[in-house]
């Protein structure tokens, strides 16, 4: 993988004296949108990169699912034992997955065409958010006993919900912000979601500078109106 940041050639060093004063920028060569894309894709492997898919109702990473379960009861006594299994009523459940991370970003637009002005969120990962629970209960008496085993499951939609169709950041229309904690976020309209938020939790201010610079580089390069000078 080629790091575009490091591979840049800085031709007009004298014209940007203040710019080269940044240690992270001083060693740069030519800067290009492709390099910025590559840099941002590489950063997903190095820093925490969270993604939020916000639907029209304002719900973030919203998934629906189904609650199921069963209760197994074993009753015993001096006349033997009896085992019964009863299902629990199914219920519709929902949740908002708190931690969804982008693992693969590609410079591909919503139509599958390579372009430096779009970033497709190709792959995401998240900790397991399906839930299971098992409970046991024992009720013993002098001449009888009862064991109750309760198994419950909350199973939600898979992460493919956020990948079909693929969500793409259109760098011609984005908003970039930087938090006091040093994380850099880019917000774009999604395809099947109202908004996409891609956030790099850099930690290091210099690295945050580079990420922010790459984002703004892409935004400025892809903003068609920017070239009008207004």
């Amino acid at each position: 993988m080629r790091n575009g940041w490091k591979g840049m050639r800085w031709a007009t060093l004298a014209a940007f004296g203040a710019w080269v004063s940044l240690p992270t920028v001083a060693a740069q060569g030519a800067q290009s949108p492709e390099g910025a894309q590559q840099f941002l894709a590489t950063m997903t492997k190095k820093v925490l990169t969270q993604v939020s898919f916000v639907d029209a109702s304002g719900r973030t990473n919203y998934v629906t699912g189904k609650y199921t379960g069963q209760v197994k009861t074993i009753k015993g006594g001096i006349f033997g034992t009896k085992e019964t299994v009863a299902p629990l009523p199914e219920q519709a459940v929902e949740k908002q997955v708190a931690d969804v991370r982008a693992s693969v970003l590609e410079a591909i637009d919503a139509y599958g065409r390579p372009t430096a002005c779009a970033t497709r969120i190709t792959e995401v990962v998240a900790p397991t958010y399906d839930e299971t629970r098992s409970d046991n209960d024992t009720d013993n008496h002098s001449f009888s006993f009862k064991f109750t085993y309760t198994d419950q499951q909350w199973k939600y939609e898979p992460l493919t919900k956020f990948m079909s169709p693929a969500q793409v950041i259109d760098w011609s229309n984005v908003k970039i912000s930087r938090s006091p904690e040093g994380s850099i976020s880019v917000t774009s309209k999604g395809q099947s979601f109202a908004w996409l938020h891609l956030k790099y939790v850099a930690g290091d201010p210099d690295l945050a500078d580079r990420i922010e610079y790459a984002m703004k580089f892409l935004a400025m390069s892809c903003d068609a109106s920017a070239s009008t000078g207004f």
Partner: protein
Amino acid sequence: MQEAGPGVFRLHWRWETPGQVLLEEWYRGTSDPGKPAYVMTIRLGPKPGTFNLKSTSMIGKEWQGTLQDDGSVSYVGTGMLKFAYIVRIDEQGNFEQARPNRPAYIHAVPISSAPPAAVATTSPPSAPPPAASMSTPVATTAPTAPVPSEKPAPVVAKQQPSPPAPPIKAPRHLSDADLQRLHESVQKSRARSIVQARQVELQRQEAARQAQLQQQAWAAAEAQRQAEEAEADAEFEAERARKAAAWQQTTQANEQALADSMQRLRNTTAQVQAQQAEAQARQRAQAATLAQAERQRQVELIRQANQRQEDEAARLAAQRQQYERQRADAQAAESARLQQQRSAGNGAGAGHASTDTDANRCVSGADVRENDTTKGNTAAYVSNGCGTPVDVKVCLMTESGWKCGVTWGLASQGSWSFSAFRATGAVFVDAKTAGSSRPLAAPN
């Protein structure tokens, strides 16, 4: 095979994800032409040559499709309702759908212009998937692994269909001025971030300081509260001790007073008992004196009566002697006369008569009093004021009737008593001169 009727359904295929997800849209000809009435989502199956079809009709029912050797695709529904059918492209390029062992009832003529479309003659198509030989890329696409759906494994995005795609946006070349603005923007952003972070830190420190002050205030208030509580406890304890001491003192005083009172009561009781004993002794002495005086008075009365009786007896004796003398004289005269008479022939006999003195007159009345030594026993005392011995009978009325006792030959000036239990007070006394033949009387 039925002929396709115009204006019923139009089929339109488009890629949702190129090479992976194909959408088959069924448009109703007479309704909104821009909105499909049904959409079949066709995905690659887990094995090469297999498909998964999900229809928006029939509540999202799914079919599993298998590519056949002749190029057709055989679909079998999942679940209890199989609804098996086969789709194919016939020799004329028409879309054809048929139930197994039944004639085909749908055929369609492909339209060369994009997007591909077909016309269906039936009402809601259950699931007409594309045949493998169609121009759509479903069959021609090299089989790829199915989209992973398990969590937390990475999930690969699916690309939207390309047509109709707008032109690709190309980035422009940034000038040095642009780069300068970018640099300044980043620097400003960093500075702003640092300022904001500093402000956040200051706010955090201020909040921490406020929290610490609040904590100190709370601690001071708590200490003051504890001190006040301790003071209150001490005051309460002192008050309690004082009250306890006062109570103890009062208790001791009360106990002492009670003891004194009890002692006084005992003394009073003893004094009363002594006074009662003394009074009883005095009463007994007085009673004894009175009884003695009464007895002496009675003895004197008896003696006087006896004296009078003796005087009377002496007078009577003198009279009797006189009478006897007279009678003797008379007897003598008589005797002489009788003698004379006997001498004259017949003599005559003489009579004799005796009378007991009334002993009841010289026997004292019964003195009844409680027996000093035996509780519940009553004794009646009598004294013989006669000059001769007497026989005396005394009867006491008891709860069970009269109880009587007799003494024989009670000497002159002698006393005798008869006692009985549960006497009621009534007394009967009878006396006679000793040796008299008169029987003693009874109370009944």
